[in-house]
């Protein structure tokens, strides 16, 4: 192994993706990594500010616009927060429809990430379109799987990007059972394709690295978590109702980033597929559980590169859940339950594809918003991403700048941050320190 002396700086100039424009700076001197910063310079859009004074019915539509990749997560966290403030809870078939819509988003987002963003890293292609030149069947399988996720969102939400059918208390209209059942043949095909996807990504070669963090996710008593009202860490040191989230977790504003950094009073943590899997593997539906056994993944998976396998297992689970919900679906008597505004505070949480998303609203008697807080998953994962980068660079200093840069990009994409493709524009500048 050759050792470099002197310094070098890896500079990712434009992490331009999804929830963020960002950049990566890594400074190295004499084989020691001095600093690793993930800078998110996506211009601030001030959602929490302009929500003040708006009507309680508006956050599902307004906060959806925070992210075009996971709008349903914002809709569901805002709905449950406001409903809890008003003392109501959406149950039964309406809750199942919400879960179905959310399954559509997990499928759309996860398949996009697996096939189009992350797999090309492992296989050495710049992107899925280039990958299709040699693996057309694979890419076409991914596109069809993703399309079926989008169709679920259109069926329940009216539109795949920024669904229009979601409201506080439920939906504007409930989908027709006949039309739902028409999707079953495609969903069954997709379930098989998802199983094949798990086996495919399991053949990838995974860099050796293990992260040292706690896994934090929503938990549900009877199923793999998507929406729920408790938050747990896999070690069991944390098990709290959603209302206590901000007693333990905070956001820190650091100079280099427009995304606030998530902080836990007990130390480093991550949210997302690895956290859900660590907390709830035993609640996976049968096909997904079988897939996990087949690839021999259990409990706490500490290699973040293997998140692509866990994502693929969650896609299996999402298709299974979608099939189950549609088969059992009975049209609800009303598309929404009534709500009555009152002065109060409400907390809501749900599992966006990339992890736990928390909302809090202070509401006035007339139903207007006094103030609100939104803690997105990417902000919470940012310190862990920086931590991983630091160690990955330290462990791989013998690599060429090009290879090390590629590895850094791939490391960032492990978290499917809303800045994944940002890492596509990485530039290295050597400096003598």
């Amino acid at each position, binding site marked *: 192994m050759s050792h470099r002396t002197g310094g070098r700086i890896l500079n990712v100039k434009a992490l331009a993706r999804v*929830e963020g424009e960002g950049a990566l700076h890594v400074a190295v001197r004499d084989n020691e990594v001095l600093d690793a910063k993930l800078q998110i310079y996506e211009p601030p859009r001030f959602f929490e500010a302009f929500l003040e004074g708006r009507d309680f019915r508006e956050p599902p539509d307004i906060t959806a616009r925070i992210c*075009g990749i996971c709008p349903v997560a914002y809709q569901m966290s805002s709905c449950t927060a406001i409903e809890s403030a008003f003392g109501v809870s959406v149950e039964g078939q309406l809750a199942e429809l919400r879960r179905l819509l959310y399954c559509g988003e997990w499928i759309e987002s996860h398949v996009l990430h697996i096939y189009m963003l992350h797999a090309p890293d492992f296989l050495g292609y710049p*992107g899925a379109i280039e990958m299709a030149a040699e693996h057309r069947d694979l890419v076409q399988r991914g596109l069809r799987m*993703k399309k079926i996720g989008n169709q679920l969102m259109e069926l329940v939400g009216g539109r795949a990007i920024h669904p229009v059918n979601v409201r506080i208390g439920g939906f504007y209209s409930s989908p027709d059972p006949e039309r739902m059942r028409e999707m079953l043949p495609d969903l069954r095909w997709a379930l098989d394709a998802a199983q094949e996807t798990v086996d495919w990504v399991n053949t990838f070669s995974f860099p050796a690295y293990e992260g040292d963090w706690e896994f934090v996710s929503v938990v549900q008593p009877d199923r793999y978590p998507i929406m729920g009202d408790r938050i747990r860490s896999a070690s069991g040191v944390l098990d709290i109702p959603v209302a206590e989230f901000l007693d333990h977790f905070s956001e820190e504003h650091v100079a280099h980033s427009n995304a606030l950094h998530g902080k836990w009073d007990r130390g480093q943590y991550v949210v997302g597929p690895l956290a859900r899997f660590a907390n709830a593997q035993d609640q996976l539906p049968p096909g997904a559980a079988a897939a996990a056994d087949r690839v021999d993944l259990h409990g706490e998976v500490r290699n973040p590169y293997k998140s692509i396998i866990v994502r693929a297992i969650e896609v299996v689970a999402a298709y299974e859940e979608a099939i189950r919900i549609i088969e059992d679906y009975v049209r609800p008597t009303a598309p929404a339950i009534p709500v009555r505004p009152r002065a109060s505070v409400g907390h809501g949480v749900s599992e966006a594809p990339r992890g736990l998303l928390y909302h809090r609203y202070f509401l006035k008697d007339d139903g207007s918003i006094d*103030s609100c807080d939104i803690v997105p998953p990417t902000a919470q994962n940012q310190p862990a991403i920086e931590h991983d980068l630091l160690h990955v660079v330290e462990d791989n200093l013998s690599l060429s700048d090009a290879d090390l840069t590629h590895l850094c990009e791939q490391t960032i994409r492990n978290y499917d941050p809303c800045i994944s493709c940002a890492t596509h524009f990485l530039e290295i500048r050597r400096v003598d320190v």
Partner: protein
Amino acid sequence: MKPRIAVWKFSSCDGCQLSLLDCEDELLALGNAVEIAYFLEATSRVEDGPYDVSIVEGSITTAHDEERIQEVRENSGVVVAIGACATAGGIQALKNFADVEEYKRIVYAHPEYVDTLATSTPIGEHIKVDVELRGCPIDRGQLLAAISALVLGHAPRTKTSPVCLDCKQNGITCVLVSKGRPCLGPITQTGCGALCPSIGRGCFGCFGPADTANVDALTAQLRQLGMTDVGIDEMMNTYATTQFRKLVADQAGTGRGGSDDSGEQV
């Protein structure tokens, strides 16, 4: 030679460029018909300009982006602005009518770290835009049609009629008249296929105003439904606020707009 296409992001949610990746049935064919020279969401392969077509998502909210959009224009044959952010400043343009320093204090512990202009402005306020596709998000059918037209060498056409017309053509019962639900369909440009009315919900204007919009007539109707002027103002001024504000200002005093000279306050 294949036309060279670039996709650029400014301040936005990424949903409109995702619409391109959501063209699952057409994406690989598109990849054959054009050269995707710059599209960070899809590929890390980055080709230098000039580009035949630049698709631009997002609004301008920083000094750096004011410069960057000029470079895009200089390097592009045709510029297509996609979505409510690029064509109207987006939902983040709500700050244009507020105190941005106050906004910084509400969201950030250290407002001094935050680099932002006081306004969020559409691409067309900074450079010449050749084609605009509206919507929050855009309709992917409109996007594909526009790209196809440009590849074939003619100007894309998009409908400019109001959502109302789509409801009539598609046999959707009027939510405003028959259900008494507030709806911006009469003054909003179509493109969505009357999505919200089709599920029994009023249109909330995410495609911005139609050419033929008559604000006065709708405002009077909304007041009759019991909406306050504040409520009407918020309904119009969310997803395409700069366009609706301009419309209201242009029509004030003409008998076709403004909320000062007609109707009864409820």
